[in-house]
């Protein structure tokens, strides 16, 4: 089963890459969906790593840092949710509403705090990935006005 999965992914990736090359562009709603999901995934990967390190009693995060990061992550997820709700409500031809622009900008600032708490730790790289994903979402929101 594992071998079949290993084989499936490269074939899927190749097929989808070819199709993407032949295909059309995403509309604003689809881009918001894509980028919000990518931001969520990056947040979740960071959370899983941070939690794993915490429960393994690694030097980082301390109990206080774990609590601080929990608060930041909670607020970040709320922003992802708000963007998703607003994105789902978009109608064809709508420009990006202020809600999405504001939430994504606030998320960018919040991720900066996450980056600061993760600097020099095993989670730093994932925090960097998170920052890039949120910047992409912010750029998509700005481009859809």
């Amino acid at each position, binding site marked *: 089963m594992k071998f079949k999965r290993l084989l499936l992914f490269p074939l899927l990736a190749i097929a989808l890459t070819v199709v993407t090359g032949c*295909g059309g562009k*995403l509309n604003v709603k689809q881009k918001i969906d894509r980028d919000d999901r*990518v931001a969520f995934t990056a947040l979740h990967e960071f959370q899983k790593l941070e939690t794993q390190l915490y429960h393994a009693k690694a030097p980082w995060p301390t*109990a206080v840092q774990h609590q601080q990061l929990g608060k930041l*992550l909670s607020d970040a997820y709320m922003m992802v949710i708000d963007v998703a709700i607003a994105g*789902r409500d978009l109608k064809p031809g709508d420009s990006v509403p202020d809600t999405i622009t504001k939430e994504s900008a606030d998320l960018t600032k919040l991720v900066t705090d996450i980056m600061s708490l993760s600097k020099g730790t095993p989670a730093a790289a994932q925090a960097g990935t998170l920052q890039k994903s949120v910047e992409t979402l912010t750029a998509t929101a700005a481009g859809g006005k």
Partner: protein
Amino acid sequence: MKFNVTDLIGLISSLSPFVPAAVVTVETVIGALKGAGALTDEDVDADFTALIAQAIEAKAEADRAASGNDPQ
């Protein structure tokens, strides 16, 4: 032919132990489905709904950590 975006993303997520770039893969999938003319607004709405549910669940875990009630 319509694709169920949520199921497809679920499949890709299940491959994540073998795919370090799973995040990029999600982006490729959605873009490719649109390119194939297979991604409808209903699919996008369904994905937003699934995303909201997943984020709510993840937020609950974050809230537990934030409360200080998450013992090592």
